[in-house]
């Protein structure tokens, strides 16, 4: 499910369709003509390009009497598709209903792991497809073939498995590789947005640049989709270490690399005294994380608001650059308070306004 991508493709197709759609379409009563005229050559309001499905052929989770009659590893079949946000679309035929839902990555991994106990195939759907509603008994194999638009006459998951495997474009998949691909795509997309710095911003004083980057990083870290991917990466670190490594490479490590470069430039310009810029970048990132990142990953409490994020980014930059130790302004301010709360010296007032 690739919403922005699909929408873009659909728009392109709509443009193509508008230019050559016949003007003499027979419009059904009660349907707005603009909608009816939108229908493409297959009668669909939007034209969406065929996409890949991850089709999982699995053994049963619990023993059932009919299991003895079907292939030992292919007793059930369902289909999944990754989205751009880390979640997955699941289409699983039940005996009593069709389960169509969006799964967060941690839940999707459960289904993928189940798939891993059998066989996982990547199959491109056919549009408009050659399946038929006249197949009769709609078991999981029949419904999955229908989702894929295949004119299959098999009644068993294993039969569908053999048919799909005979197609040239079908590929076998494994769970870790699927997670690696999805984590890399999702996390790098978010990281790029958070870490992109314009030439104008690069020329800003370090303090302002760090506030901008810190705020962008915090905002991105707190994106629900990315928190879910982070949660899954941690939870599955032992089982799928490569997926977790990819998360770290495209997420925190990339942030550290960008921050290191910025700090190295600032060091060269004499703005900061840092022996090890990479260590400094790690420290800055740690200050940004504070408690809120762990709390968010553990799904404790509310996601901070934009103004809270801004305050935290500013405070982190303040402590990172100036430290929490006493400075002249604080000493002056304390002196004013001791003098009966009279007006602050100019320098103190400016520093206070700046920090707000």
């Amino acid at each position: 499910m690739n919403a922005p991508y699909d929408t873009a493709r659909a728009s392109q197709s709509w443009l193509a369709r508008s230019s050559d759609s016949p003007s003499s379409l027979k419009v059904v009563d009660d349907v707005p003509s603009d909608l009816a005229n939108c229908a493409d050559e297959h009668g669909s309001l939007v034209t969406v390009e065929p996409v890949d499905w991850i089709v999982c052929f699995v053994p049963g989770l619990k023993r059932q009497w009919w299991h003895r009659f079907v292939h030992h590893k292919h007793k059930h079949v369902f289909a999944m598709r990754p989205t751009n946000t880390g979640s997955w679309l699941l289409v699983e035929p039940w005996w009593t209903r069709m389960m169509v839902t969006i799964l967060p990555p941690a839940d999707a991994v459960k289904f993928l792991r189940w798939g891993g106990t059998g066989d996982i195939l990547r199959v491109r759907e056919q549009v408009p497809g050659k399946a038929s509603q006249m197949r009769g008994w709609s078991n999981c194999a029949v419904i999955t073939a229908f989702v894929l638009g295949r004119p299959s006459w098999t009644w068993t998951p294993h039969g569908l498995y053999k048919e799909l495997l005979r197609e040239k474009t079908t590929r076998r998949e494994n769970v870790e590789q699927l997670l690696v691909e999805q984590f890399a795509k999702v996390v790098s997309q978010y990281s790029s947005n958070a870490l992109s710095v314009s030439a104008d911003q690069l020329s800003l004083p370090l303090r302002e640049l760090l506030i901008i980057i810190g705020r962008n990083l915090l905002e991105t870290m707190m994106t629900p989709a990315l928190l879910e991917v982070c949660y899954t990466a941690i939870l599955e670190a032992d089982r799928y270490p490569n997926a977790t490594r990819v998360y770290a490479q495209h997420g925190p490590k990339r942030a550290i690399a960008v921050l290191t470069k910025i700090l190295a430039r600032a060091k060269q310009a004499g703005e900061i005294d840092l022996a090890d810029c990479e260590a400094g970048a790690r420290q800055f990132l740690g200050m940004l994380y504070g408690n809120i990142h762990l709390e968010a990953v553990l799904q404790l409490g509310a996601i901070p608001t934009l103004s809270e994020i801004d305050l935290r980014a500013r405070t982190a930059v303040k402590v990172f650059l100036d430290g929490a130790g006493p400075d002249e302004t604080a000493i002056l301010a304390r002196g004013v308070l001791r003098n009966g709360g009279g007006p602050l010296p100019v320098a103190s007032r400016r520093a206070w306004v700046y920090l707000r």
Partner: protein
Amino acid sequence: MRRPASARANNAESRPDIRSDIVSAISGTLADPCDTLADLNGIFHRSGYSQEDIWSAFESIDDLVVAVAEHEALFISQPLVRRVRPNTLDDVRDTLVAFGLVASREYSTTLVGFIRMMMAEGARNPSLKKRVYEAGSEIVTRRLREFLSDTNERGILSISDAQVCAEQLMGLLREPLYQALMLNPVTSQNGSAADRVKASVERFLHGCASARSARYERTI
């Protein structure tokens, strides 16, 4: 998770030693780097105590897990409460380094397994996750905040928001935890863990702006 009420022995107060022994054993098990895919049953099994032992000392598994979190929080925050009240920046530095060394060690050992366990169990039992966090991390942060507030009021430190600063320092010290949770094998870094803690505390106290830059920034 909860044992039937009829079988629940009220040993919570009568057998404090066994309770603390079990808590220490579970903490030790969590610190064991061989731990993989932590779930509660596996951790209990490796602690050497049977479920019967645990039931006899705790009313529920949830209570045991919360007790482990409390134990860890007390252990980590000891340097903040045990020391003589600091009078100088050097005293503050010494206290924060002592605190940071314990925290950093726990974040790279016991708490790695503990966080994983919380994540695995938390989906099934969200209230346990909340109780554990309140009994653990929140207590440590509160003690650190109180320490920072006190030093701020006495003019040793200059901080505008002790809670946020406490959280930032916790974030600084939590780096080994993130490393252990996400990077396997853990990336090697320059210097020892003690050096990194000292450097982090120095950064927290003094920042890294050069004297020239700081003077300029503070007057604009």
